[in-house]
């Protein structure tokens, strides 16, 4: 019995059929059970896109901080970059292509429903000696990042369904602990809460919570539920770890970036013409935030209906 083909539950069916076509059903099951999965490069994108993303990140970080792009990211082992690590979408067309990648989008929809919204995009560059920081007080000069969830501001109990999902493009290899990877606590999305202070320092002797290093080849997508406990460890290998996380979330959440403002800047609006589906992903349809006289979107009536309908089921 091929349930998805019955078209009885349209939102669920659409996501399931896409997953079947993309051969990623096993990854959806892992997200449901463990709260994390790694999709290998061959199921994600051509190597050219990975190269383009890596180059664009290095170029833009250099421009933002008035730096020279290192000769070779494989061997550059000094801390590099700066604090301007967010807002990548309109910096290079490759970021838009990554945001709309079919595999990434199918998984985003599985996790946050078909009306999923791109929340924001940081980029991470890590070398030996890069300190870590979670929150304003938790700087760790050794480079260990404390366990946390990404569902900031949402009190417990957190629902088992995801409000956010982190879909990270691994742009360099994560072969082992020496690469300074993310560490994760599989299954912790079912705990329904953030880690408490005494649970966060996973690297200390007799730590109450054990975390495992994430492994995956460059070009993989590492994906985890927004309520999954995770942190990271310092890099000891030569060269850079370069990662491009895309945070997707449900449409009722305040986005990390202000997309209407970003779209109004320069000629960014042109991307909506070239990639019409981008408007959906940035929630251009959503009636909130509105002004005193009503919605600031011309399709407010349609937007209202859609906004309310999204609450109908977890895959809508």
């Amino acid at each position: 019995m091929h349930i998805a083909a019955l078209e009885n539950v349209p939102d669920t069916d659409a996501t399931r059929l896409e997953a079947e076509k993309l051969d990623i059903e096993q990854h959806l099951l892992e997200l449901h059970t463990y709260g994390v999965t790694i999709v290998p490069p061959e199921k994600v994108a051509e190597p050219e896109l990975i190269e383009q993303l890596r180059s664009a990140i290095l170029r833009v970080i250099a421009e933002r901080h008035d730096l020279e792009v290192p000769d070779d990211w494989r061997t550059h082992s000094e801390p590099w970059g700066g604090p301007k690590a967010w807002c990548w979408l309109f910096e290079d067309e490759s970021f838009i292509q990554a945001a709309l990648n079919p595999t990434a989008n199918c998984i985003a929809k599985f996790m946050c429903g078909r009306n999923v919204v791109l929340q924001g995009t940081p980029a991470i560059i890590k070398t030996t000696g890069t300190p870590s920081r979670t929150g304003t007080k938790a700087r760790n000069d050794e480079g260990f990042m404390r366990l946390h969830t990404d569902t900031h501001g949402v009190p417990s109990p957190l629902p088992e369904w995801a409000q956010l999902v982190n879909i990270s493009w691994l742009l360099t290899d994560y072969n082992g602990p020496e690469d300074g990877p993310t560490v994760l606590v599989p299954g912790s999305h079912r705990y329904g809460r953030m880690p408490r202070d005494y649970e966060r320092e996973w690297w200390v002797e007799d730590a109450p919570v054990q975390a495992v290093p994430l492994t995956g080849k460059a070009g993989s997508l590492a994906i985890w539920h927004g309520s999954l406990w995770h942190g990271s460890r310092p890099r000891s290998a030569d060269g850079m770890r370069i990662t491009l996380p895309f945070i997707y979330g449900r449409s009722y959440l305040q986005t990390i970036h202000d997309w209407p403002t970003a779209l109004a800047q320069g000629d960014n609006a042109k991307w909506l013409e070239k990639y019409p589906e981008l408007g959906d992903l940035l929630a251009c349809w959503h009636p909130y935030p509105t002004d005193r006289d009503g919605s600031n979107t011309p399709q407010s009536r349609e937007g209202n209906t859609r906004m309310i309908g999204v609450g109908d089921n977890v895959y809508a």
Partner: protein
Amino acid sequence: MDLPDLGTNPELDTIMQRARKFDIETNLLDLAMYGFTVVPPEKLGSKDLTPRLRDAILRVYERRTQHKIDDWSTYDGKIEAHQSWGWLLEDDVFLEAMHNPVYQTIGQFLTGQSGFLAGASVIFKTQAQEFDLPLHSDSHGVPPPWPSFATYGNLSWLLTDYLSREDGPTVLVPGSQRGRMPRGNESNAHLEENEHIKPIPLEGAAGSLAVWNGSMWHGSVRRTKPGMRITLVTVWQRVFMRPIERVKEISPEQLKKWPDLPRLLGYERIYPYQEEITNPAQVDPTIQAGRDQYA
């Protein structure tokens, strides 16, 4: 990164490793997304299990009612009132089916490694029964909002074909395991037009295993063709649930053949307490089941 091999969630890892081995990962994903799945006969092993289960059921039915049915494939008459629960210990073939590894993996995926087989009933259906079962959930007594995990799991062996509505199949509302019981006319959505609720008939060849989360809305429609529908329904429950069937004595022969039966049937759970705790070894696993839905 092979998650089930990392040892981070031992109970879940075992279930996932077995799911991979038995090629039922997409069935588990069906359960996660839709709340039900149908495992086809070819994934369940023994080809002669289905006729042996059917024959055993008809033997027990005859013993219970003195009514002999010569040919189930053409019988079109009345089904005598019979004790519909309490089948598991009546014939070894039932216990053989309960030890099918695919069956047990799915039962544990739904109710955890501490989940237990709480009872088994048999459904006979012929054209003579002019009855449609209203939509309902089996999560009796559990108020809304329902938890995201299953409290009950229904694992039904389809012993005759469910190929179309004429076979009198179960009908289900995909995705309905998330929420609450049906209210009012919602229970008749498979019998009359309903704008919002669209039940679908369960389809599967004889020998399939149909599984649904106990919270799913389901009912059935009457049979409109000759022959019998025969279904062996088994219900799994979480360790904290009140069991459907009373404890029955397991024979020494059965215990010798299947030493795990007391655990499988939930006889080794911590409750009810006597003056002294009789199963102290089960205290920790029961507490662990409260920490992890797969434990």
